[in-house]
């Protein structure tokens, strides 16, 4: 028979240690990888505070903010900032508009639209460096199909990436070709996940299509747009593959984006400290952007998990 409360010595039960250690044990490898990232990162921070040229190792010395201070009056630095920002703004701006337009175009779930969406994704699955190589073949002045085609419409001396005036246009075009599908596919998934009722109600009420788009579709799509755009901003500001494969930052310094500049500083001019300082400036930008991104992305992620 039961009694209400049996009096007895209160014993503190304890899980064996291995149970409490289990989560730590499981994440140990990931932790090691983390350390493997954080140690070089700290080293990079240290480099950026040093005068350090690997061809003149005996001149290596702490100069603290020295590298950063020279940036203030360094036209190469400001050129890099300008090039990176314009590259980022052009690519992400065009990709957003184009991606949204294509997503709207393919919004209805028909067999053709689904196949078209997959087909559009293919450029995204090609390594950007190889994509650049493909475009290099197509824009070759001797035999490139695109050079031939623009020649047909009268632009006989269009030099694509080799001319300072069109180099930016060319790499932006390649970036758009590769990464528009990324924004498109995310927005398409977003559009198809939107609830139907607001649209049905608007249709019943005879609300004009432009009003529906700006007041219903766009606001409801905003979390997806934000996530996709921030994702792209983060990638675009760090662009390396396409620019390096196309022109290595040239012609001149026309395409000298952050990572290409840092790469050349390190491996061509052997200026380790200055290269690291370039990367730290870039890192700061990406750090701010990635915090914004992660916030948005977590919200979207929770929504996706909640829908299960």
């Amino acid at each position: 028979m039961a009694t209400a409360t049996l009096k007895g010595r209160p014993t503190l039960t304890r899980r064996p240690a291995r149970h409490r250690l289990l989560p730590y044990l499981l994440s140990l490898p990931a932790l090691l990888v983390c350390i493997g990232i954080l140690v070089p990162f700290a080293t990079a921070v240290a480099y950026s505070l040093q005068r350090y040229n690997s061809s003149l190792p005996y001149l290596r010395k702490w100069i603290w903010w020295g590298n950063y201070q020279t940036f203030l009056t360094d036209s190469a630095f400001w050129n890099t900032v300008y090039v990176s920002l314009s590259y980022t703004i052009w690519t992400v701006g065009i990709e957003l508009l184009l991606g949204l337009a294509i997503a709207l175009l393919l919004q209805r779930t028909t067999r053709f639209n689904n196949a078209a969406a997959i087909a559009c994704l293919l450029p995204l699955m090609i390594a950007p460096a190889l994509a650049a190589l493909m475009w290099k073949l197509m824009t070759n002045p001797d035999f490139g199909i695109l050079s031939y085609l623009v020649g047909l419409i009268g632009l006989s001396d269009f030099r694509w990436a080799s001319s300072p005036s069109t180099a930016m246009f060319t790499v932006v075009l390649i970036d758009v070709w590769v990464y528009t599908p990324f924004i498109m596919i995310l927005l398409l998934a977003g559009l198809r996940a939107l609830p139907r009722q607001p649209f049905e109600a608007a249709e019943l009420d005879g609300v004009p299509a432009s009003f529906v788009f700006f007041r219903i579709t766009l606001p409801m799509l905003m979390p997806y747009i934000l996530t996709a755009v921030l994702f792209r901003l983060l990638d675009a500001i760090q662009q390396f593959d396409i620019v390096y494969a196309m022109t290595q930052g040239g012609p001149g310094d026309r395409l000298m984006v952050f990572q290409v500049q840092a790469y050349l500083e390190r491996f061509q001019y052997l200026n380790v400290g200055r290269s690291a300082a370039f990367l730290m400036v870039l890192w700061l930008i990406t750090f701010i952007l990635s915090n914004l991104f992660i916030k948005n992305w977590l919200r979207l992620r929770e929504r996706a998990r909640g829908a299960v």
Partner: protein
Amino acid sequence: MASKISGGAVLRAAARIIVLLFFLFPIFWVFLMSFQTNQQILRIPPSIFFTPTLENYTALFSGRLQTASGSLDIAFIKNLLNSIILSSCSVLIALILGVPAAYAFARFKFRLGENIAFTLLSFRFAPPLLVLVPLVAYFQMIGLSDTYIGLIWVYQLICLPLILWIVRGYFEDISPDIEHAYRVDGHSWAKTFFKIAIPLARPGIAAAALLSFIFAWNNFVFALILASADKQPVTVGALAFVTSAGIQYGIIAAAIVLSVTPTLLLALYAQRYLVEGLSLGAVKG
């Protein structure tokens, strides 16, 4: 009564065709080039009608190119092999390291876990050169420079966050009670992990694995900095072609075709997971 097709519909159909043309034409054109001789490629005007030749591919596979000025060694097959080794080993290691960690992060709420997960995530978005440049020095110190192991270790930067975050989401979707029930039935923790958690998260694990394979394959900058010629994957190897003298354009095209085919096929195969993978698990397709 004649059926009337609205102008808008025609416009939309035309727009769809233009979009497809824009995205597919470069692939199509380079594919054609890979079956052409240099003479055919240099023809003006270009034409899509030509007698296809396999000489570009045979040159790549035989590793020797006979030209008027002599013969040239091509190491492309070695590049292809490197890509296969690096990508598949990286994914395999990332799965072994990442899946248990993803499980730990999903099931046990502990601060260290969150810190690891978010550190890896935020470095997914940090400039890769920032970590790579100092790593060159460290790798020289510990003898990992220009080894597969060193490269695979660095490739974890791409693969691990992807696997961790996608698979974590799948583990979180499994009701903990299902695992509790299995434990209560008398099974050990390890058995529960392998017989319940892993099978139920399998779609997520597959998606994450395929995606990280594609991303690892497509990576350029890691190998550019860390690998010498005989460890280089196709992305770096194909670029080296352009600068090497005497190479024929058709061979470059053929190398590109061979380099992108695996990822394109994988993408087609894994299409329903792509959206989820590309958004690191935030959007379900």
